[in-house]
């Protein structure tokens, strides 16, 4: 005696968020049933294992049928197959596009290609995220990337409109797209301590200030590609380290301002030239695609690590960078104030975000 067929269909979609999450997480039906039963589903309404099994199957099928629609969320709103109340639609989409920070951290900056997809089982093993879930997340990244790649207008807004995501999630996707497009290196061991949120924040800074979109908001790829002119202009900043006078002058201005305000003053003073060279060198090399990729690793190696070894506190860091940036304005021979601000504004906030254990 076996159940040959078992189907339950509601006029309005019937789903439990718990089961949806299990499905998204890549549990098989049987595993999901186990999880639910361990979680106490049996205590409710005199359920037994068969009931839970049947309920789980029904929902899994529903989700599978919805999956096609979830690939283009705007269709979900005007499709006729399922009647889904608006708040449910939002939940379905938001959860479908949600990702594990652990997983995304592994993929961030990698090319969203078949090659990477093949490595997903390694990532799955490493992060503990089920392979099925890894595939979904990876495909989501790829899908969003493909769609917004060719669109004009602000990246975050495009993502929000095409995928009906919340603002927060849209920003995260913008970061993912941005990283994937510029292929920033994030996988090096030295960068491992950075979380996805750190990097997403930095990406947001870069998108808002360094891309074409920061100056012109009607260009294709405006938020994905860095502003080439700006990168070119950054070369001019070299004067800050090549001109000895300027360098000394800058150092004394900064030191004057810092003196007595921090315990790490001595280290700051001693390292000033090194640190300044590091930051300016990063700026001047950004015309080079390879160096763009190494942007984060450079920041860590050239600036964050030295500071950390000198035991600067976050407050020290803030103080230092503020004065470092502002003092440049007082340098009378330094003419590139605008470029400097645009550069340092981003660098400052990135470093603040990245300066932690």
């Amino acid at each position: 005696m076996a159940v040959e067929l078992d189907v339950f269909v509601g006029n309005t979609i019937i789903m439990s968020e718990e089961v949806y999450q299990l499905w998204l997480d890549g549990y098989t039906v049987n595993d999901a049933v186990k999880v639910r039963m361990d979680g106490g589903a049996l205590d409710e309404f005199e359920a037994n294992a068969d009931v839970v099994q049947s309920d789980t199957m029904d929902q899994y099928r529903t989700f599978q049928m919805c999956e096609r629609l979830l690939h283009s969320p705007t269709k979900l709103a005007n499709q006729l197959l399922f009647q889904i109340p608006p708040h449910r639609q939002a939940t379905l989409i938001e959860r479908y596009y949600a990702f594990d920070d652990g997983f995304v951290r592994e993929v961030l900056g990698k090319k969203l290609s078949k090659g990477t997809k093949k490595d997903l089982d390694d990532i799955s093993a490493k992060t503990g995220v089920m392979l099925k879930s890894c595939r979904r997340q990876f495909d989501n990244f790829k899908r969003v990337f493909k769609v917004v790649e060719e669109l004009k207008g602000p990246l975050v807004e495009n993502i929000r409109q095409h995928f009906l995501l919340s603002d927060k999630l849209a920003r995260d996707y913008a970061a993912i797209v941005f990283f994937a497009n510029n292929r920033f290196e994030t996988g090096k061991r030295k960068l491992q301590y950075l979380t996805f949120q750190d990097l997403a924040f930095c990406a947001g800074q870069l998108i808002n200030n360094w891309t074409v979109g920061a100056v012109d908001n009607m260009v294709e790829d405006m938020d994905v590609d860095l502003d080439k002119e700006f990168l070119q202009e950054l070369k001019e900043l070299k004067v800050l380290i090549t001109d000895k006078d300027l360098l000394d002058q800058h150092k004394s201005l900064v030191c004057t301002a810092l003196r007595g305000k921090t315990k790490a003053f001595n280290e700051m003073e001693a390292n000033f030239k090194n640190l300044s060279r590091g930051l300016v060198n990063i700026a001047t090399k950004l015309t080079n695609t390879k160096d763009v990729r190494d942007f984060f690793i450079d920041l860590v190696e050239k600036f964050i690590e030295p500071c950390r070894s000198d035991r600067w506190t976050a407050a020290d860091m803030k103080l230092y960078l503020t004065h470092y940036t502002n003092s440049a304005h007082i340098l009378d021979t330094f003419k590139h104030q605008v470029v400097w601000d645009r550069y340092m504004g981003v660098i400052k906030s990135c470093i603040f975000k990245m300066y932690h254990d």
Partner: protein
Amino acid sequence: MPGKLKAKIVAGRHLPVMDRASDLTDAFVEVKFGNTTFKTDVFPKSLNPQWNSEWFKFEVDDEDLQDEPLQITVLDHDTYSANDAIGKVYIDIDPLLYSEAASVISGWFPIYDTIHGIRGEINVLVKVELFNDLNRFRQSSCGVKFFCTTSIPKGYRAAIVHGFVEELVVNEDPEYQWIDRIRTPRASNEARQRLIFLMSGELQRKIGLKVLEMGGNAVVGYLQCFDLEGESGLVVRAIGTACTLEKLSSGSSTHTHPNTAPASNACNSPSKDGKESPLAHGCRSTHNSPVHSACSSQRLSQNFSVSVPTLIFTGMGSGSMGKDAGPLKTLLRQQTQTALEQREFPFFTLTSFPSGFLLHVGGVVSARSVKLLDRIHNPALGNTRSYKLLDWNSVTADEPETRDAWWEEIRQEIKSHAKALGCHAVVGYSENTNICEEVCILSASGTAAILNPRYMREGCLDIAGSDHRFEDPSPSSCGFCHIPYDELNMPFPAQLTYCFHCRRQKVPDVLFTTIDLPSDAAIAGKGCFIQARLCRLKKKAQGEVNATAISNLLPFMEYELHTQLMNKLKLRSMNALFGLSIQISVGENMLLGLASATGVYLTALPAPGGIQIAGKTPGDLNNEQHIMNIQKRINDTIAKNKELYEVNPPKLFALDPEVFCGTNVELTEEVVGSPIPEPRHRSRLFRSHSESSDELSELDLSHGKKDAFVLEVDDTDAVEDIHSLLTDAPPPKGFHSCNTETMPGIYNWTSALQMFTSVRVLRLSNANLTNQALNKIFTDLCENLLKSFYFKLRSMVPCCLSHLNFSVAVPEEELIQVAVTAVAMTFDKDQTQEKPAEKPIMKGCSEGEEQLQFPLELCADSSSVNSQSSSRISGVPESSSLSTRAASVDYGSFADRCSTWLELLRLKAHTIRRGSVKTSRRTQSLAHSVSSLEHSSPITEGRSRLLRSSRSFGGSSVSVVKMTPLSFLPGTRIVKYLGIINMFFIRETTSLREEGGVSGFLHSFVAEVFAMVRAHVAALGGNAVVSYSMKDCVLMENPNKNQCQCLINVSGDAVIYIRETDLEAIASTVGLSSTNSDGAT
């Protein structure tokens, strides 16, 4: 040339990719009506084409307008090879043909392909211009409104209820034509879908004609079914109740309660071929119809038919015959009777009535007949249609053994059963078939009843405002329980007592009916869903042998189902069943029986006695111990159930039965002083004395004797039966369930609802199962389904599963299929809890009144005051504390299984009376075709277009369409009926595994069917479907070939509703706003 149909193809969206190379589609559309086809231009390389076509105009007969669907085919243009079909949309334009209807159908329709399912959507506009006045179109029946709803639709009053209409149409099934061997599955499915569409269009037109002939303008309780007879052909048949409906002004409609729909009904039918037999009131049921009457088989030896002896289950009665002795009444009654008698079949497919309409209920009447199918002879008449649609009636003269004749037989039988119960009408009537290979079981059932003569007069009375109740002999809260038959001439032995409400008339101990609980009935506690399930093995056989075997088994099955129902009812401490439907399904090697009903404690009826277990061998200690255990469990269960369902019958009545007997009589005579008509006189007139006197004494004897039902444990079977009795789990806390329109005892619905369909198929692995094992499996299957529902819908608690409609089938050997459609509705817990507290009923006028009012008021929050509450005359002075426990049926005797079925039958006839089992089936049949929507959108065309077109662009969301099997939506008012939805779909796959197996396949198909229903309703401007039912779900699978095919037939009424809250604000405008704005659920 009476009509011009115009169609415009606006746009498509979400089309499938048809060209792999470009990932795009070059789509165009063919629009076909009758034999005329138009095409749009090809819209190249797009998945969201904007055709924006011109208006395609079809000039057609109105007859065709009624029969034919508009057929829209979306294709992919291919320069080098044949164009590929993407899918089709069939649009029934019938809704556009009513005078008050919408003038446009407009909206997005899913493009459906029988192999691939839904493939994108298409936006279409359809209009009809009728050139002549509607009245002239008598050859067609444009303008007759159809309703699936089995009560008078809200917002209407029935000026006249004309009565029963039926029709059937037969054709060859395309699936079985020779050409099917060479055409593709798609072509064959489409031929079938289209044929069924045409047939149901024609059927509806013909029924409409009959209605017009009778002078009516609408069909209520329209029930259309399909019989897929395989080689023998395809039958589409329909029954309904013809009425003349009048629209209520919005003002007055406010005052109608959902269940007491405004109406006055006058029945007066001008049917010509009526028979004029005087009503035999006290007639005893003679009916044990000859079991093997090979009706009509003389002519063709091939044609075999067995009419199964049917039972009259009775149950109740009304004493009214005796009571209303006033000359006027008598006269009226006479008139009524004649009016009804004139009609060939005084049947009503309605299940709930305006209050006052139903006077007395006699019990369930049912008839079944086993037939052998033969190929339908379809004389080829010169017919220009693409399909030859023949009216079977037209050839009946030559072919007496037609389906028409079969049904005629059955209806006659039902009619005579009703007469035997002293009733002149049958309400809650339904018919259905079950086919297995060449054997076909036809069943019909209903509830014998006496209708109020007042409503039989033509054109009379608006019930709503009248004071007629004062002349009414029986109060509405209990009147319908009073026996309609003569107590001295009862059709069967029954335990009669005086009504616990009014004390003036006799009531039976138990009442079974197929109708809904009358809204003004006095009950205690809540109702509950009761189901009896039964499996019986049978030997495989062919032809006549098989048919005989089946017909021999049927009476046993009905008997056992009845016994089970009775026991379960007692176990729940209840005394009446409503909405009873008994379904018997045949397979090659087994028969399945499923009886569902809603149990209720009617306070007018005596409290049910307990169940007492008796052992056969008193000497055996072990055994005695065992029996005591069982007895204890039973008693515990009864006690638990009483609490669970809050059944607190009036304690005062629980006095010594003997006292009751004594006082009772006096009471009636003295206090009420009712003019009881001399029963003796009557009996003399109609029946033999000996019988009546026997019964009388029998009755007296049994009266005070026992108060418990005795179950005898004499063999293992009986033990099994008792165990199974106790295995029914009550619904978990917070849940209630019923199969009727409303849940007795719950009134304060909130607006959340969830309609669902669930299908489960079980494969029996072990070929050598015993009856017991099978029963267990079947019972578990049903119980587990219920458990699943409770679990899935747990978030809606407190909630009630209403209108639980189970249908069983044996699709092939070793498979059992159960399909359920129901709706879960939430209610407000607090209010309900208050009620039971007040419930305990006392006697006496004033209290009785309160009690009655109770429910009324509750319901009234939504709508209004019921005029009748004021007029109850029920009471007997309170002082008399009478008591009762009447029910003592000695069931022990049944336990002795009879060796011959004849004996059994005889027994049955006896037993049944008390229980009143009737067999009734609800709309279960197969059916039909896609028909569509009715029209009439409330908006002006321009506006609707605007609204819709805005919908079509961008991400604007789809408007919500609610669906429910009930005739109402809680918290809302239905402001317009747009027409019936009647759709038939076939889905087939040759890649079953890839679609997720049978479950995946059916899951998406059911979802698609819902989607298509919603889309058609929305295109008509509607926002809900009421009285929705899935009449058929036929699944054929062949997993080895990776194939599966499924047919689904659904129907319902498309409506526009407005929420009560919005209503107050809007007052008079019928806003489309509600259509769009409503988002809940």
